[in-house]
C-alpha cells in the first residue's frame, strides 16, 4: 500500500507510528493484530537518505542487522556464513553482484539506495516501511528502482508500506493508495489499483493509470486549497 499527500500531512509520522518509533498521542496502532507499544522488531526501513555506514564495506553494511540480531539472541541470525551468502545473493538480485567489498563512498546514489534497500530486507522482515526512498534519484534510476522493487516483492512475502510524493510511483508499486489531507492529517480518499502484477512501466501511460493519477492530483490539490 502507499500513502500520498501534500507535505506536512503526516505521512512520515504515520510510518514512525506504525514502526512504534513514536508513541501515539491518542488512539492506538495495531500491527498483525497486536497493539504497538514500542519499536517493532520485525521491520525493515529505508529512507530518502540511504544512511549507510561509510566505514564499512557494502557487505559489512548488510551484516550490521545480523550483528544486532545475534547479540540479541534472535533466531533469524543463525551464523555468519549463512548470512553472508544471503547478502551476496541479495546484492546479485539488485544488480550489485561483486560489489561486496566496495566502500559506500565509491558507489553512485542509485547504488547506495539499492544497498540501503538490501539492508532493509536482509533479515526478511514481515513489514517493509519506505519513506520516499527513491525521491533523491534521477528519473531513470528511479524507474529502475521501481522495477527492482517489484521483482523483490514478487520473490518474497512481506507487507510494504510506501510513503511518497510521486503519484506514478504509488500507482506502479501499490495495490491500495491512501490519499491524505493536511490539517488535520487524515486519510481523505482510498483507491485500489487494479493493474495486475507484474506491472510494466508502459502501463503507467495507459488509460487506467493516467485517469487515477489525474484524479489523485485533483484530490490533493483540493485539500491544499482548503487549508490555504
Amino acid at each position: 500500500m502507499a500513502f500520498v499527500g501534500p507535505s506536512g500531512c503526516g505521512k512520515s509520522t504515520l510510518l514512525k507510528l506504525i514502526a512504534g518509533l513514536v508513541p501515539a498521542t491518542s488512539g492506538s496502532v495495531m500491527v498483525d493484530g497486536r497493539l504497538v507499544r514500542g519499536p517493532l522488531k520485525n521491520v525493515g526501513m529505508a529512507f530518502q537518505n540511504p544512511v549507510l555506514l561509510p566505514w564499512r564495506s557494502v557487505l559489512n553494511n548488510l551484516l550490521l542487522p545480523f550483528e544486532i540480531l545475534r547479540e540479541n539472541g534472535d533466531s533469524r541470525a543463525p551464523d555468519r556464513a549463512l548470512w553472508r551468502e544471503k547478502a551476496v545473493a541479495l546484492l546479485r538480485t539488485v544488480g550489485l553482484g561483486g560489489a561486496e567489498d566496495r566502500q559506500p563512498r565509491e558507489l553512485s546514489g542509485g547504488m547506495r539506495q539499492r544497498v540501503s534497500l538490501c539492508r532493509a530486507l536482509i533479515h526478511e522482515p514481515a513489514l517493509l516501511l519506505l519513506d520516499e526512498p527513491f525521491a533523491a534519484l534521477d528519473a531513470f534510476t528511479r524507474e529502475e528502482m521501481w522495477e527492482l522493487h517489484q521483482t523483490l516483492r514478487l520473490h518474497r512475502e512481506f507487507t510494504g508500506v510506501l510513503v511518497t510524493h510521486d503519484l506514478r510511483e504509488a500507482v506502479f508499486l501499490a495495490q491500495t493508495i491512501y490519499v491524505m489531507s493536511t490539517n488535520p492529517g487524515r486519510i481523505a480518499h482510498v483507491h485500489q489499483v487494479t493493474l495486475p502484477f507484474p506491472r510494466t512501466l508502459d502501463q503507467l501511460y495507459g488509460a487506467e493509470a493516467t485517469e487515477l493519477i489525474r484524479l489523485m492530483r485533483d484530490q490533493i490539490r483540493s485539500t491544499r486549497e482548503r487549508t490555504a
Partner: protein
Amino acid sequence: MTRRIALPFLVFVVLLLVWELAVPLFRIQQIVLPAPSGVAGTMMRTAGPIAFHARHTLVTTLIGFGAAVALGLLLGFAIGASATVHDALYPLLVGFNSIPKAAVVPLLVMWFGIGAVPAVLTAFLLAFFPIAVNVSVGLATLESELRDVLRVLGASRWQIFRKVGVPRTMPLFFASLKVAISSAFVGSVISETVASNAGIGYLMAVATSDFNTRLAFGGLFVLAVLGVLLYGVFAVIERRLTGWAYTD
C-alpha cells in the same frame, strides 16, 4: 608526499638564510637577536641539558594529554548521548574553557608546589576541552534515520552507541587529538616557565634571566620541532584509522 615535506623545509632554510644575513647587515646585537648559526652552536654545546629538559617536557605533556583523552572521551560521550547532560554541563564547560589557563597556574602551584604536577595539570586542563566537544558533536549529529533503521531491528541504545555512535565519532575524535596535543604542549610549557625546575619552559626562563638569548632561541626551536612531531604523529594515526571519512 615529498613535495609536502620538501616545500616547507625549503621555505624554512630560506628564512634562516635571510635571518643569518640580516643580523650582521643591520648590525643587530647578538643579545637582542642572535644569528641562527650562533643559536645552533649553543644548542650543540648544551645538547645534553637540552635533551634532558625536552624529555621532561615531553613526558609531562603526554601524561596530561593521556588524562585529557580519557576524560574528554568520557565527557564527550556523556554530553553527546544525553540531552540532559548536555544542557547541564555544556555551558559550564564553555565558561571553564574561557578562563585563560595561565591564570590558573599560580593556584596549582600553591596547591601542589613547584614541579611537574602543575605542568601535567595545566596540560590536561588545556587539552580535554577540544576532545570533549568534538566527541559530543560526533554523537549528537547521528542521523535520525540511521537510528530508526537500527531500532526497528530491536537494537538497544547501547548497541546503537557501540555500532554506530562510536565509529562515527572517531574522525572527529582524532581530529581533536591534533589540536589537543598542541594545547597540552602549550599548557605544560606555560607552567614550566612559571614554576618548575625542569623542562624546556624552565630552561627558557633561566636562559632569559641570564640574558642568554641564544639558549632561549634554542629552546624555542626545540619546542617547535617537538610540536610539529607530536602533531605529525597524530595526523598519521588519524589518516590511518579514519581514512574513510576523507574524500580524495
